[in-house]
């Protein structure tokens, strides 16, 4: 690997990292704003214009609070918990394709941290590790409520990962590739997977709600039953990291949803726009502008799903634990398997017919 490539990769990864943090930070602001708007209030509007400095104020408050560690807690693991949660949340953004490529002085730079041929597997691996952040933190607190909350969170995440993986298999059967860049490239124009996989999409989005511990599946932090869930003993910025990791996860999963089902940076009429831009700005600049438009489209989709998470949060009440498990094991998993069978049959029998008919 030569130096230029190394530098380019470093810059891309730092940019992706910074952008993820920024979006997660403003998700906390957006969450409160959306909550306010849905409840006929106006939300935070005192710190800065429209309350835009609210995340900074919150972070400042978190940092200045006492960094307390319970006497009987396992000190190292108690600190490792929120660190792990943040680490795993941030790792997943590395493989997301934010756009196609930039052409700078003859080099093609992909707008993606790492182009990996097992991208989606990597995301799943990292997301599965996210359970450890909760489990380690909950156990290390040496508190029964924390431990119960952590166990609930872990069992919930593990249950829903199964259905999530199964719903994903249908996508993989269609794309026959594990690379996220490849999956996006196949959804060129308006050829989005949502039109082929509506059932898979519903299963996937339900499971991602559960994976992010969002309402209606936010049982790990169910205050009425478990005091504060796995972060009962946490305060100061360690609590802040747990809450912040949730928002990062939310953005990452929104990005994954838009990549897998809504065509990522693809939008209808992109070939026409590309041709026009290349004609008027030349092959390099035109290509770069087209990529930027694609990236904007991608962020539009991802941020819409972040909004959707909030919208659902302020609409639906929390599930009971047995309802959660029933939904996960008895409904979503059979549905996902059914979806796989349907997809397999369609790929095998319907696709040749349609292809022949189109040609």
């Amino acid at each position, binding site marked *: 690997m030569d130096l230029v490539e190394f530098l380019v990769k470093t810059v891309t990864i730092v940019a992706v990292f910074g952008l993820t943090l920024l979006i997660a930070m403003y998700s906390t602001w957006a969450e409160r704003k959306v909550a306010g*708007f849905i409840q*006929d*209030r*106006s939300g935070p*509007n005192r710190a800065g214009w429209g309350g835009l400095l609210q995340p900074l104020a919150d972070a400042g408050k978190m940092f200045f609070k006492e960094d307390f560690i319970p006497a009987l807690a396992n000190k190292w693991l108690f600190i490792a918990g929120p660190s792990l949660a943040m680490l795993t949340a941030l790792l997943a953004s590395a493989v997301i394709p934010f756009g196609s490529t930039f052409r700078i002085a003859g080099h093609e730079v992909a707008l993606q941290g790492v182009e990996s041929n097992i991208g989606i597997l990597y995301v799943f691996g990292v997301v599965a590790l996210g359970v450890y952040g909760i489990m380690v933190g909950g156990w290390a607190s040496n508190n029964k409520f924390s431990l119960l909350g952590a166990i609930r969170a872990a069992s919930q995440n593990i249950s829903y990962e199964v259905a999530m993986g199964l719903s994903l298999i249908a996508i993989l059967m269609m794309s026959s590739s594990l690379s996220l860049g490849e999956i996006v490239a196949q959804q060129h124009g308006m050829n989005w997977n949502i039109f082929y996989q509506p059932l898979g999409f*519903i299963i996937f989005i339900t499971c991602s709600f559960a994976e992010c511990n969002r309402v209606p599946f936010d049982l790990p932090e169910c205050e009425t039953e478990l005091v504060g869930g796995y972060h009962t003993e946490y305060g100061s910025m360690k609590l802040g990291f747990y809450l912040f990791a949730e928002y990062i996860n939310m953005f990452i999963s929104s990005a994954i949803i838009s990549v897998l089902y809504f065509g990522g940076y693809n939008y209808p009429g992109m070939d026409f726009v590309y041709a026009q831009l290349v004609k008027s700005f030349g092959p390099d600049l035109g290509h770069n502008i087209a990529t930027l438009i694609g990236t904007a489209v991608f962020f539009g989709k991802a941020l819409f799903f972040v909004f959707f998470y909030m*919208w659902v949060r302020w*609409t639906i009440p929390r599930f009971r634990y047995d309802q959660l498990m029933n939904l996960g094991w008895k409904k979503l998993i059979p549905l996902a398997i059914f979806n796989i069978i349907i997809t397999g049959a369609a790929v095998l029998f319907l696709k040749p017919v349609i292809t022949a008919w189109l040609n």
Partner: protein
Amino acid sequence: MQLTNRSKQVSNKEMTLAERAYLPAIATGLAITIKHFFSKKVTIQYPEVKRYLGPVFRGRHILKRDAEGRERCTACGLCAVACPAEAISMVAAERVKGEENLYREEKYAAVYEVNMLRCIFCGLCEEACPKQAVYLRHDEFVPVFTERDQVIWGKDLLVEDMNNRYTREAWTKEEARALDAKRASGEVTNVVPRAIP
């Protein structure tokens, strides 16, 4: 016995497939919340916009003057007696010749102090006053104080300013709205903007 006509018969019937699938119900819920997302917000931005609290609200005290600008208070002490919190104290003095345009009665309050930390804004002083001298304003609060010497209000703060007289003009919401309209058109200037629900 039927108490309201909103009561519903409870039924234990099996849910239909659409009900068990959650999704139609969730979609209905989402439609309701998004409707509220775009609806008008009910918040009144408090320090900038004040709500009209009605003509009988009891805010800060004022010592009224009469139409010729003479202080009405005659230092009888009935307000201090009526005060359950013992917040009012005064020193009486006799009017001398040449002060007839300052004080209406022959006896007046040389010192009149209200301790705003003790005052409970019950309005009993207002009711006790035989001369209609002391009132609790309906449109102004006691501002927040941060120092001890701001707590006791003397005559300098209490006595009415003849250039900005206190009147209780709006007795109903409609009158308050009309007054706000007058202020917007520039006819009157002594009305503070407020939200009238």
